[in-house]
């Protein structure tokens, strides 16, 4: 069992999220995170799935996803080098007496403070999964009130050798 990050390029049609999520749950795949957003090409969305499974079952996910008509491209990014970011918003208790400690902890993880109130702040932690999880653990003692997480977004690395470009520009829509 290993963690795999799968990148899916799909037509931006109504129902495509439902179709993808349905396939993943129907076949019993173990999905840790799923995120979706627009790309630079109008009409195309990118889904990022993080799944836990052995190589054979992950290959099955890739192949089954690839069969969906509206899915244009599926890549298991973990087969190669890639960059990945998670973002988590953490609302943490920060009354004046401990606020400097909270801010100091957030600083260690290079978090941004994006909201501040009477006795709580919202910090934005961005990074790979390990960093975001560590940050959450570090502020937990102060009293975490709410958390919202993005799930992973990822792209294959460009590198300096022969560039393995995803032919997004070539897709006719």
């Amino acid at each position: 069992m290993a963690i795999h990050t799968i990148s899916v390029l799909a037509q931006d049609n109504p129902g495509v999220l439902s179709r993808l999520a349905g396939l993943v749950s129907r076949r019993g795949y173990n999905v840790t995170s799923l995120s979706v957003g627009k790309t630079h090409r109008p009409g195309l969305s990118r889904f990022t799935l993080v799944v836990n499974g052995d190589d054979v079952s992950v290959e099955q996910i890739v192949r089954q996803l690839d069969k969906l008509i509206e899915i244009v491209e599926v890549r298991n990014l973990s087969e190669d080098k890639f960059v990945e970011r998670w973002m988590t918003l953490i609302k943490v208790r920060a009354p004046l007496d401990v606020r400097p400690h909270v801010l100091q902890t957030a600083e260690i993880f290079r978090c941004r403070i994006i909201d501040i109130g009477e006795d709580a702040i919202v910090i934005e932690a961005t990074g790979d999964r390990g960093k975001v999880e560590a940050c959450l653990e570090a502020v937990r003692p102060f009293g975490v009130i709410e958390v919202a997480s993005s799930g992973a977004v990822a792209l294959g690395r460009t590198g300096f050798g022969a560039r393995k470009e995803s032919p997004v520009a070539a897709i006719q829509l």
Partner: protein
Amino acid sequence: MMNGAQMVVEALRREGVEVLFGIPGGTVIPLFDAMVNAPFRQVLTRHEQGAVHAAEGYGRASGKVGVCLVTSGPGATNTLTGLADAHLDSVPLVVITGQVKTSLIGTDAFQEADIFGCSMPVVKHSFLVRTLEQLPAALAGAFHIARTGRPGPVLVDIPVDVQNARGEFDYPPALNFPGYSAEVAEELSGLDEARRLLERSERPMILAGGGIILSDAAEALLGLAEAGSIPVATTFMGKGGFPERHPLSLGTAGMHGRAQANRALCEADVVLAVGTRLSDRTTGRPDGFAPKAKLIHVDMDRAEVGKTFSPQVGLVGDAAKVLSLLAPSVEGKDCRAWRETLDGWTRSYPLEPAPDVLSAPLVIRAVRRLVDEETVVVTEVGQHQMWAGLHWETNRPRSFISSGGLGTMGFGLPAALGAAFATGKPVVCFAGDGSLLMNIQELESCSRYNLPVKVIVLNNGSLGMVRQWQELFFDERYAQTLEGVHCDFVALAESFFMRGYRVKVAEELEETLKEALETPGPALVDCVIPWRDKVFPMVPAGAALGDFLWPDGGPTES
């Protein structure tokens, strides 16, 4: 200018549709109205499930896209079983459903069901047409996707206001499916290794699935088998892909496969599996499937290769093409000792039924003798279906039609109706009393169109397949399977204005069958068979293929 409904009719005409199965309802009145003078036939069934199975029967018998048109809500949800059935058996199908008008979608309006959402897990693709502009592309796309690649069912949901909207019609529109290719994405890098394995094999065999039929690869399969004298077993769905009268045929393999086919799979050193998804019903317990063999798995669907088994060699490509590429490597092989072993097994497990007792095998074999090779036979689902698999010698593709993957009771009668429209010839429908009653209303459709559908009821007054499991694995506790059938099938047939016959003893069989087959139009023959009869061989669920049950303790060693 034309309205959306007229566009549908025109699109169907241009797609070459000859016949459409359906039932009108509130949200498809404009569509049926537009079809009054359509150049294709419209067939009214008595239940939407009947319509969708009829379209499947048409598609399976002809290889063309079966088309079904039903109303929204219950009409649409009644097609789900047919969609799932077509999905598992890769049947080209387009199901058009009416939908409430777009402004009412999502408001729980009368006869509103989210069929677009409901259909997702059981279709190759589905469309919800929200505007008139999307309509031509959805229709053209539906037919394109249903019939190309690995065929499958496609749903097109059309709100009634889109049917009534008027606009210009341009057809065929440009198709925009960047994620779908009608061409197979081949992966043939293992070809040389496959050739090597076949060339060196001493006990090779071919396991041919339904893909042989879908890819029109029967000829290529015959070529390869004959080139190397390689024995061929088919899956249940592959029945018809290889002539069963051929000396190299082992018959069907699997849970109720022929003994020699299953034993061959246990002993073979190379198994070439083509166009099969190697389902649990075909393979039995995974570690008991082809345990001594190197497995070469060929399929056009990349996701099937490696799904249930990790083959030594996986090849992705069209069956006919790959078989032709492999044929030279087996040229001149003989495998005489291996074939003699197999022939010995065939003799050890004779299937011939007792001639003096009316039994399902006796009836099936009698009908077989009375009709020609081209005759399409359709089955319902249950014991009779497995008996037909074992005893109905099938020699041509598309002449044996059955619900394989989903195992849908109630499939057979409407599918026979659809097949009769496809072939224009008499169609034999083997049915159990249980299955037949699941869509019995379609006898009315057969009668109304005076179709030559010959329903042969193998009536054991029980839900026989489940009863067989209860006898063997549940200490003979016959929960709900021996309730009896409070129905006179002959009188029922006659009430639908078709001929009904009853056979109770073997002596009357041949003559009654002859009369039923020769009578123009539909007929039903109620054959009363012993309720205790079981289908053998049988590989118990979860057992290895070689551990099949055989009556009276074991084979007759020759």
